[in-house]
């Protein structure tokens, strides 16, 4: 499987964010998108996730499921956690597990994998920022998707949480998945670097 974007150009609010950008990542490979604030890292991820339409260029996922588009085979972990404060931790996770569909893992086991199983019945409103992040990461585990698009995935995570997430990313890559992550911090796994923005 290979994710490739060719000659991508993104325009937001009349301003060109990036242009002529080539992205590519193969199965088992991680791509770390780095660059200064405002370089277009989040925009690139959102273009790949199908949430922004590129002004130019093409995106393709070779070797994936031909019936499904790239966004349908991808997990997107954005700045916002997609959690409902009124629902419990377990209800939040179970909803996404059922809604996203596809091959699903046991929800309890996913919570245990991010060390949140003790809080399963707590409303998500009471979670700390780090715990919210852990719960979002549990969503990536609960439904299997080959492509992970991660936006600052380790922000708000403590050292133990970061180590845990590094192990989960390793497992994902070993299982033939691919990762595109926008980050300021080192990811902690072997990743190819895509530098955006230069000295802008």
């Amino acid at each position, binding site marked *: 499987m290979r994710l490739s974007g060719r000659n991508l150009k993104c325009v937001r609010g009349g301003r060109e964010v990036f242009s002529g950008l080539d992205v590519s990542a193969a199965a088992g490979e991680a791509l770390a998108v780095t660059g200064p604030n405002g370089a277009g890292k989040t925009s690139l991820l959102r273009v790949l996730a*199908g949430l922004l339409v590129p002004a130019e260029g093409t995106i393709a996922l070779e070797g994936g499921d031909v019936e499904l588009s790239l966004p349908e085979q991808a997990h*997107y972990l954005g700045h*916002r956690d997609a959690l409902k404060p009124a629902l419990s931790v377990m209800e939040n996770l179970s909803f996404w597990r059922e*809604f996203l569909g596809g091959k699903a893992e046991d929800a309890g086991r996913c919570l245990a994998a991010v060390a949140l199983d003790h809080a399963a019945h707590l409303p998500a409103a009471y979670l700390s920022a780090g715990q919210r992040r852990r719960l979002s990461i549990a969503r990536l585990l609960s439904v299997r998707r080959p492509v992970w698009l991660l936006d600052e995935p380790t922000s708000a995570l403590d050292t133990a949480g970061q180590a845990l997430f590094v192990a989960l990313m390793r497992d994902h890559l070993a299982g033939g998945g691919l990762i595109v992550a926008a980050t300021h911090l080192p990811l902690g796994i072997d990743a190819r670097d895509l530098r955006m923005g230069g000295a802008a």
Partner: protein
Amino acid sequence: MSALAALIRRDIRIALRVGGGALIGVLFFLTVTVLMPFAVGPDLALLSRLGPAILWLGALLASLLTLDRLFTADHEDGSLDLIVMSRTPLELACAAKALAHWIAAGLPLIIATPVLGLLLNLDGTATLAVAATLLAGTPALTFTGMIGAALAVTLHRGGLLLAVLVLPLSIPVLIFGVAASQAAISGPLPFGTPFSILCALSLASLVIGPFAAAASLRHGLD
């Protein structure tokens, strides 16, 4: 299908919990209807003549009150991104969300109608007629209102814009809803004529609403 069922279950659950909008709509409906006799005065004949119109206006405003959260809540916390990306067609997801909103916010209004009818000096037949027209007409309010909610999704404080966008669209529903109620109470028209047009409006909005809302959501995301 299970994805849509999960979405409907989640939205109803959120609406019924603390901070959800379901009860607020009913309370607002109750308040508007209770205030009306005080404003109109103790003229029972006038009150029962105005009754259906008052109930319909109350229901319209109450459903508008909670409609602006239909997509903004999901947009603010990032859920909408995932819904757009998912394998479920966005049109169906929109329809599921509107259905959940109607069950949580529209049905309680219809259930409250018989109680409120007493306050407006409406007799049994009249109350039943109003409840029937609300049952047939409120889905149209929700599904056309959804279009406005989708257009205003990226705006902070889009509630006012939503009202401006949606109220003109709900005029036909209001006309035929009240006309059908009046026909059942005093004639001379048969109840069936305006009522079938009301049903037609609901069915048409059931089809148009999800497509229009999905199109504007796709266009408005950034």
